[in-house]
């Protein structure tokens, strides 16, 4: 493990769809600190089609904030640090910018290799435009047309267990070969083969005459076993390589980095995996980000990695995906003031035209936060459908993205997460206001000390401990008896009723021990024993018991619903300890 003895300063750049961020880390008083962030609009799209200008502006802003020269007179990055203190030692680069990657998934059985290939595809920033399996009943020429018309960037080819038969996979490869031969050379997709390894060598030999072929270990080595991680890394590499061709400036920047350029979601997954190993692996760690163009959930639990990227699905450039998946009426139900569904629909469409716009009024902020709740709800549901072993029980949960991290108050961020993700059990919610998650994930491979020290430094905002019991009791019934014992021996006792949202009297940074007695079959946490009490640390919102039930339901009657939404906000805002 690295130590501060061989300390190096790190610059992390994240090129997002809307914003490019530059983050500076260095050693201060013997420990790594996050020093500052500079951001600027991303320039990968028109009129620049080059990431360079956005990066240059973000670095210029960072220089202004820190008064530390990072670029030389020719606007080149100073690497490594010079004796006068200018520059940085190492660079990490992550990106989520770019158009949707178009993917075709090809496998054998619908519920086996095709299902795994679909899950693999959702680890990157794109969408599945066609899928083809052994039980596809279309004529072979119709299948060929489907492959040709998909205008795909990638074909993901899976199928066959290890030491299993190869004939069926070969048949699919034959079709892929026909498609490649029929396509114009410039239209041919890159291929990721992650099926039966007995075929890898032969397949690479045949297909690489026509296109670039990447190979990864079998994502379905046995019928019952799925292993997406190595193939997800290969897919990440393919995505970065594609971006290098699609817009300028990236390849040159990529040559300066300490490690490989990573897609933002993959980098966050690395951090989450790292933290999961560092903390209690059984509890699991979740990273979630609602971005302009994409939303992702990255979880690690018991040594298993779980990543799902939803794209397009975001509160800016990803609005088209929102409008296809989420109804404006569902967004409107979270708004605590009188707005019509038409007004909400107009707002969402307008946001699709001006994706970088910031809500500047109370009403537009409420609409935007309603949208974030629905995006999170949709994403959490789909995540759990793909990974049934991942209930929304993680400790801790890290959340990022401008809408979540730059809300009007910490309570607003907390409520968006509780209402959207609807976690269960005991957790601590952290906010990532500077976009540190992917940066730390990208740096973790080169320096494991830095992420740990940054996490301990308070760069993430602790929103608070949350306890979300699950009960079938009727609303108003007492489901928990809580006893909060402070360090000085004083204690507070409370009864928690089904349907309530209760702030616990604990200040930011204060620690206490919480004893819970479950009543009427209430489950406090499916993954952890809470009988002997457990320590909690107050965050910006103190600590909260969310006994509103799962799934959370809102009254249908608009006035009652608005009143309830206001009551929940007031419960936390007015009783938030300072």
């Amino acid at each position, binding site marked *: 493990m690295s130590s501060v003895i061989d300390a190096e300063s790190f610059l992390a750049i994240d090129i997002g769809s809307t914003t490019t961020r530059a983050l500076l880390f260095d050693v201060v008083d013997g420990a790594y600190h996050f020093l500052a962030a500079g951001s*600027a*609009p991303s*320039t990968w*799209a*028109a*009129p*620049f089609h080059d990431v360079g*200008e*956005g990066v240059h*502006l973000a670095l210029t802003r960072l220089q202004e904030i820190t008064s530390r020269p990072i670029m030389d007179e020719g606007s080149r990055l100073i690497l490594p640090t010079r004796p006068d203190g200018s520059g940085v030692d190492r660079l990490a680069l992550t990106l989520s910018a770019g*158009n949707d990657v178009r993917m075709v998934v090809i496998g054998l059985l619908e519920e086996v290799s095709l299902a795994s290939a679909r899950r693999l595809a959702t680890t990157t920033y794109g969408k599945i435009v066609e899928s083809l399996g052994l039980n596809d009943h279309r*004529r*072979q*020429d119709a299948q*060929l*047309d489907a492959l*040709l*018309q998909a205008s795909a960037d990638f074909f993901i080819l899976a199928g066959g267990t290890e030491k299993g038969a190869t004939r069926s996979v070969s048949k699919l490869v*034959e079709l892929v070969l*026909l498609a490649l*031969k*029929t396509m*114009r050379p*410039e*239209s041919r997709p890159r291929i990721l083969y992650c099926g039966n390894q007995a075929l890898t060598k032969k397949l690479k030999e045949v297909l690489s005459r026509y296109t670039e072929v990447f190979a990864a270990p079998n994502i379905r080595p046995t019928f019952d076993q799925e292993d997406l991680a190595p193939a997800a890394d290969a897919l990440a590499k393919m995505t970065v390589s594609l971006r290098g061709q699609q817009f300028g400036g990236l390849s040159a920047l990529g040559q300066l980095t300490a490690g490989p350029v990573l897609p933002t979601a993959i980098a966050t997954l690395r951090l989450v995996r790292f933290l999961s190993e560092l903390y209690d692996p059984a509890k699991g760690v979740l990273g979630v980000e609602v971005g302009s163009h994409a939303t992702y959930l990255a979880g690690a639990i018991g040594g298993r990695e779980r990543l799902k990227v939803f794209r397009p699905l975001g509160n800016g*450039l990803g609005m088209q995906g929102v409008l296809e998946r989420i109804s404006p009426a569902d967004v409107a139900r979270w708004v605590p003031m009188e707005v019509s569904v*038409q*007004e909400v*629909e*107009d*707002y*969402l*469409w*307008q946001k699709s*035209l*001006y994706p*970088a*716009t*910031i*809500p*500047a*009024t*109370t*009403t*537009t*902020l409420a609409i935007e936060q309603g949208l974030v709740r629905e995006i999170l709800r949709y994403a959490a549901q789909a995540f759990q459908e793909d990974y049934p072993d991942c209930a929304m029980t993680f400790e801790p949960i890290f959340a990022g993205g401008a809408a979540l991290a*730059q*809300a*009007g*108050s910490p309570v*607003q961020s907390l409520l968006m997460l509780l209402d959207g993700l609807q976690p269960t059990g005991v957790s601590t919610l952290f906010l990532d206001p500077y976009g540190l998650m992917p940066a730390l994930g990208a740096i973790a491979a080169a320096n494991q000390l830095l992420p740990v020290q940054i996490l301990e430094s308070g760069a993430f905002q602790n929103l608070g401990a949350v306890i979300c019991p699950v009960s079938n009791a009727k609303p108003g019934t007492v489901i928990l008896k809580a006893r909060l014992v402070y360090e000085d021996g004083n204690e507070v006792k409370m009864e928690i009723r089904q349907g309530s949202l209760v702030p616990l009297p604990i200040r930011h940074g204060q620690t206490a021990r919480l004893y819970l007695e479950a009543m009427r079959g209430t489950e406090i946490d499916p993954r952890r024993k809470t009988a002997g009490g457990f320590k909690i640390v107050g965050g910006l919102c103190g600590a909260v018991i969310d006994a509103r039930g799962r799934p959370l339901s809102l009254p249908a009657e608009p006035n009652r619903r608005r009143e309830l939404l206001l009551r929940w906000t007031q419960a936390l805002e007015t009783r938030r300890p300072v």
Partner: protein
Amino acid sequence: MLAQVTHILGLTSIRRVRTLPVSGRVLVASRQKVNASDVIAEAQIPSQHVLVDVRRALRLSSVEQAQRAIVRNEGERVFEGDVIAETGGLFQRMVRAPADGQVVMIAGGRVILEVQSQPVQIVAGVPGYVTEVIQERGAVIEGQGALIQGAWGNDRVAEGMLVNLLNAPDEEMTRQKMDVSLRGAVVVGGMCTDAEVLRMGEELPLRGLILSSMSASLVPVARSVSYPILLTEGFGRIPMNEAAYALISTNDKRDVALYTPFRPLAGERPELIIPLPAVGEPAADFAYFKPDQKVRISGAPYPSHVGVLVRLLPGLTVLPNGVRAQAAEVRLSKDTLVVVPLANLEVIQSV
């Protein structure tokens, strides 16, 4: 900070690069005069193939035999019933083309015929001259005139006479205003919430419709009509910005071109072009915020208001709703100075 730019210009030089997504045929020559709706390049994108398995059809035992039986070459055109493959001998067997098409590939004893393709065309979008031909891809078009860039469009193109129905930027476009005198015109309306207005435009027919804004629920109808629709501001009930309103008001009854693609990431925005017999200066596609710039505000509480940027505020500003953002002071009128997040401003390049 880098700013988004919208052009609302009384006279400018407009240069647009138009290219096909795949290689095809360029239909114009250098220095040729074009109208906005002229097709300048086209390509055929294969959409349907037929796979003929010669080995199986002729019941041959090997791929080599099948390959030898095929009597066509790659690239050859065939018509329905033409022989594709045949065996020799006394009891000759044949495989015929199931449809008109082109042989695109012969391999493994199989023949792939492309039997249908879809044409892809690109239009000039700007009335002007071809200044450069890009081989097999498209051309560069240059024109002169007034230019108004919109916020959204339904991806159509047309030319016609501009008829301005607006007496104020915040007027509503209603079906009562639609009559037969508008036939063939590019009509300027205001805010629209009635789908019937768009349908009536199709029946008349209009050559084009410019609205300040419309309800988002009208999008499916707007996408179904054959004439171009341009929204200067976007969705909801938003009045037309003063700069666009003033320019439109002074160009009533002129011949105009309306091209309404909406592919902002690719740099294609809906545009109203009013050709003028004068030479203008090209306008920049990007700008950096600085004092004295004319800016337009997007989003509440001042949607589509145009003002002058007074100063960039240092650090982050806390907005009334608690959100913190980089912001600027914008003067909307002599007595009205407002603070707006930079993200909600775009620079209006206007003359």
